[in-house]
């Protein structure tokens, strides 16, 4: 059985869905953040797959950009989460809610 593009895309989609559902349904801010990273990495996988099966380098270059930006974003995001924890003593999303409902 040979690996075709479809398998890459399937796995990528699956990872994306898992990451998205994690953002939707989990209450811990750090887990939500992990979901976001998972979604980014799913896209990375898809791009690499396209690049391999179309025999071009475009996809790979794009992946490098995504990794860089994701890293920077993680640094900033985690700093915010740490600051938020120091202020609110919690990372649970429903407890962070300052708006009344």
């Amino acid at each position: 059985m040979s690996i075709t593009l479809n398998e890459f895309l399937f796995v990528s989609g699956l990872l994306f869905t898992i990451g998205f559902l994690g953002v939707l349904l989990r209450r811990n801010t750090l887990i939500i953040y992990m979901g976001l990273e998972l979604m980014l990495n799913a896209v990375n996988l898809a791009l690499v797959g396209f690049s391999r099966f179309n025999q071009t380098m475009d996809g790979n270059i794009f992946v490098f950009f995504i990794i860089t930006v994701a890293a920077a974003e993680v640094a900033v995001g985690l700093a915010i989460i740490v600051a938020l924890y120091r202020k609110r003593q919690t990372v649970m999303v429903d407890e962070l809610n300052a708006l009344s409902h």
Partner: protein
Amino acid sequence: MELETLLTAILLVPLGSAAMIALFLRRGGYAAAAVSVVAAAVILGLSLTFLLTWNGVTQEVSTVWLTLGSYEVTMGFLVNYQTATMLFIVAFVGFWIHVFSVGYMNEDESKGRFFGGLSIFMFSMLGIVLANNLIMIFVFWELVGFSSYMLIAHYWDKDYAAAASKKAFIVNRVGDFGFILGIVWTYWQYGTTNLVLLDAQLNNDASTVLGLLLACGFIGKSAQFPLHVWLTDAMAGPTPVSALIHAATMVAAGVYFMARIFFMLSPETQEVILWLCAAMTLFAGLCALGQTDIKKTLAYSTLSHLGFMGAAIGLGFPSLALLHMAMHAFFKATLFLCSGSVIHACHHEQDMFKMGGLWRKMPITTLTCILAALSIMAVPYFAGFYSKDTILSGAWLLAHTDGRYYVIYAILLLAALSTALYTGRMVWVVFFGQSNSDNAAHAKESNLFMTVPLLVLAAFSVGAAWFLEFDVSLLPETVTVALKHGYATITQADVVHHSHYLLLGLSVGVMIVGVLATFFFYGPGASEDKLQRRYGLVYKILHKHGWFDDVYDAYVVKVQQRVADFFGFLDLILISGFMVRGTAGLAGLLSLVTRSFHVGSIHGYVYWFLAGVVIFGAFAFHLI
């Protein structure tokens, strides 16, 4: 003063008075009375100015009030001899009743409200008198109904008064339903509702049904069968109100209206009105014998005489109807004011059989009441004689060409007998004999505010019609022109001339029989109603006036209430339920969804983000 300005002033002065009282003087009893009486005096003065200086030429002025597409509603004045007659009556009788009210309502705490109501009534009535088209007449017709509603319920804390005012208004509305259908038909068929233009187009050849529909307004307002049930209950209002509105002017507005649009009534319409009103005349006259309340007796008397006026219209003599209306206004107002004087003196005792012997204590009231009674019974040379007997002669005259009118003559003659009966009964029982209660024993003559109007109106009850036979006239010349035609036609007809003594003998005979019969049957100053004691069943039928009220009550409760309940149910489910609360519910649902934007839940924001992506994707893929 120019005619148009004069008439506008006459119309608007009472409105101004009512507005002033309503805005500033509701608590100020004497001030409100003063304003109202002054306004009535001004109206009388202006009306006399007009009547004495008018040259008799029919005039019409109008202005456009509303424009709805191609349809224009105009407001205007039509001044002809009929207008002059009615204007005098309304202004003159109205003024004296205003003066009387000052005395009668002396101890009342809500004088302000009462006099405001009188002023708004004068405004509405004058509107009907002066109007030149059917729509304007209808507007003021409803206003008069409102004034009546307000004034009947003057003692609003009494249940029967509030119920009576509602009944009056609702029964009037039923008549007005036919009236408005008639107006719509008129406009649809003739393209106008203006009286002058209609007069030019028609000559008693309008459709019968149209005439009957317009007559529905007359039947409602002038309380003819089958819409007569409200007038007796309307006696719950203060006596000046009964005198002014329910005797002299408002109920006469129906007759005036019929005379105004007489050219629209086909012979068949006239015939229907004739039979209806003649029957009413007799029926009401008899029912008056079944009442112990003095005001209710006079109310049935009014119904009976309105029947006379309707019969005159039905016989084809509108000017005769106007003549009787004018004379009736004088003597009926006198009678009502006398009863008011008596009621006031006996501390609001209204049962006739608890009075008695008042001629010693209240000589002026007794004198004026007797004069008015002689007039209503049509004693020769009194005002009532000229109008009432001429109606009888008119029936006799027509009977020579059509034998059926002998029946009408007989009915009207019997009605004249009943007039003599109930009037005789009232006078003997109330004024003569011995006092039957403490209230009556301690009565004393009323003050000047009440006796002067009585004397003036009694004088007019005696002599108002002298212009027909002699050269002296109590009324201005322009007022009498509209009243002469029918009288002249009938009395100068050969047939009537030959039977002159027969007719005179019959009516005088009937009157004497009535007066003597009541003297011997009831006895002066009787303390109980002998008819009730000896002929209980007859009395019961008359007292319940043929059970009309009960029939209408049953209809309202069994039929109308059920239909109303059904529609109420539909309203609850469909309109309140689906439409109002349904749309509110939809809005609520929408709000629940969009609310998630503002509660600070991160998960909510992510869902919105997803929704946005979906919409953008659909847009990108040309799905929307």
